[in-house]
């Protein structure tokens, strides 16, 4: 049986449905991310799990323990849930030393002094903080503060760790480093991670599985690779990575751009089912999955070419729309002002009037 289980969880704020009948299961030891734009309900979900918000419907269990249940009118306060949690703004108590911050949850559990010392030492060692133990947290950098928050959450050796955008207050290079540190800690301690972020690269790099949310509704729950390669809908495609959506309309010879100027060849066309609708379609593609192809029937004018170091970024005008193409710096490509053919590898197709 899965470890953390949310069944039909619903939360309303006044008229707004923040989370709508969400179902998800997280396995023991799994790293599970909740990903979505701000206001999508991911943080609310995490806060319901932590116990800071009550539910308006459904129930939440961890193992065989019931945490919240609307129908059962049951709600376990956060201090009894035994989670570890790390917050975006660190939430390190400035009036306590690093050591005392980490010892706080243990002291509340009335552990013997020697046990507290052992566990705090262990948590500080795991987060490379032994040298800073005596000091106040004010002297630490952002990364240091977040390590204290991690150590504090680790101290009670929780089964489940809740992480609420823990890296978004850090510098980009530090963010990457901490990402790996969190993974290493998970390997060492074996806790499950439930991770909230709006940064898709972070979610991809860290997670075993990802939940993509929008407007409080689950869009897809899958492994990072499948979310990337088989997005469930246009929203998921657009949210993960850079994307082009080229609007095409049915013409006499197949699909073409709305101004009718460019013919879309049949061979890389959409599935028959969509084609039969005779409705406008989006051709969805990633900039890195478009090739310059001299013989392609889809022609465009290169309007911008920017050298970004490892990659070269092109903007190609196709009819009345722009398509972005990215190639490695070693790949040959056209210059600004040249007309080129485009070939879409692995295109995805979505109806323009798709119901959200």
């Amino acid at each position, binding site marked *: 049986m899965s470890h953390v289980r949310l069944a039909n969880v619903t939360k309303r704020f006044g008229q707004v449905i923040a989370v709508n009948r969400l179902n998800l299961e997280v396995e023991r030891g799994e790293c599970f991310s909740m990903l979505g734009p701000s206001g999508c309900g991911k943080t609310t979900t995490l806060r319901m799990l932590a116990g800071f918000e009550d539910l308006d419907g459904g129930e939440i269990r961890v193992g065989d323990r019931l945490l919240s249940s609307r129908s059962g009118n049951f709600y376990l306060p956060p201090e009894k849930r035994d989670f570890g949690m790390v917050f975006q703004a660190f939430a390190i108590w400035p009036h306590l030393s690093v050591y005392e911050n980490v010892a706080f949850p243990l002291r509340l559990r009335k552990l013997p002094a020697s046990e507290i010392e052992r566990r705090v030492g262990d948590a500080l060692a795991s987060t490379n903080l032994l040298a800073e133990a005596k000091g106040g947290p004010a002297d630490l950098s952002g990364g240091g503060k977040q390590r204290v928050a991690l150590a504090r959450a680790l101290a009670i050796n929780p089964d489940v760790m809740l992480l609420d955008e823990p890296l978004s207050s850090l510098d980009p290079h530090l963010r990457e480093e901490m990402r790996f540190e969190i993974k290493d800690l998970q390997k060492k301690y074996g806790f499950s991670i439930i991770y909230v972020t709006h940064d898709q690269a972070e979610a991809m790099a860290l997670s075993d599985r990802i939940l993509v949310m929008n407007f409080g509704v689950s869009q897809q729950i899958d492994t990072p690779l499948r979310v990337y390669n088989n997005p469930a809908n246009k929203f998921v495609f657009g949210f993960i990575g850079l994307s082009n959506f080229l609007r095409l309309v049915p013409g006499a010879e197949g699909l073409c751009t709305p101004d009718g100027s460019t013919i879309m060849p049949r061979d890389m066309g959409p599935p028959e089912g969509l084609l039969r609708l005779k409705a406008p379609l989006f051709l969805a593609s990633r900039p890195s999955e478009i090739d310059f192809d001299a013989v392609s029937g889809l022609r465009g004018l290169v309007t911008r070419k920017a050298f970004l*170091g490892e990659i070269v970024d092109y903007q190609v005008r196709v009819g009345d729309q722009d398509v972005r193409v990215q190639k490695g710096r070693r790949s040959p490509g056209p210059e600004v002002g040249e007309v080129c053919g485009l070939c879409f590898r692995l295109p995805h197709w979505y109806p323009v009037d798709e119901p959200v």
Partner: protein
Amino acid sequence: MADIRLEGVTKAYGSHRVHSDLNLAVNQGECFTLLGPSGCGKTVMLRLIAGFEAPDAGRVAIGGTVVYDAGGGVNIPPDRRGLGVVFQDYAVWPHMTVFQNVAYPLKIAGWNPEELKRRTLETIALVNMKGLENRLPSELSGGQQQRVALARALAARPSLMLLDEPLSNLDANLREEMRFEIKEIQGKLGVTVLYVTHDQEVALVISDRMAVMDGRGRIRQIGSPAEIYENPADAFVFGFMGVANFLPTRSDGGKLLAGGGAQPIPWPGPEGKAEAWTAAFRPSDIVISRPKPLPGAGCLSGVIRRASFLGAMMDYLIDVDGAKIRAVLETHEAMSRGLIFKEGESCAVTFLNLHWFDSGALKETAI
């Protein structure tokens, strides 16, 4: 003719010397970037040119006119240097509307009301802010405020624009969009731009030429983005321009061996003399493949220590005889060629390009 010329400029704050005997020339109509880590004095340099600070020694000339000369006692105040300046924190005046902000330089210059209105509206349109003329800055997003600041700096069509990290307060998407726009506007108006940033990606996109500065304010290399990226002058420049791998080697009987092991580097060795050499390369300079049946056949064998899926890219950390190197390859390529590795698997690595740096010097120039 050089549009900005700095000669022997020295500036110190107390005992802290920011610049000493610095020389720099920026050409008419080019977009020139000062790129360096924070605290390297690049902003100070911009402020010296703008006239907000005075050098302790040296000369500053703009468009052929000496605006500061420590020896000759020349110091033209910033309001008479004819510049546009865009600041990191926007510095849009909160009590004025968008129109009033943009019109201010023209008003000060005494333009007649009709001309002023025409030019102001034209400039607001140039930065894609048409229709927002009567908004107050508090009603604008950060990106829009920065557009107002840009328009204000451009209103009087100065021959020189100074931009001090104008994008660093914006979020990633907006930053990406704005850097292309600034470049486009610069091209349209032909204005000379001096752009200060610590973000090498922005510098690469926006510059015609750029200067890379180190933490102590020395200029390490000046050149076009491609020159600097492909032919870095030293290890500092190489490391600063993007994700960099440094693979230490040791020489053994005329061969260079990778890391602490016995595998020879499958690439021509360096020229010149050094105690020890370090090979440097970008993640994209590596070709990764499944292990070859015959080891040592033009490749190094290593072990995948970490595999991260980043969406469009796969990011591998590979252990080659104790040296850690990072390889990135496109996900679709990795999938189509069966190169999705798991942690702990073996792999083979060859190179497309290598730079050689003296290992001793490398330690000194640690970033």
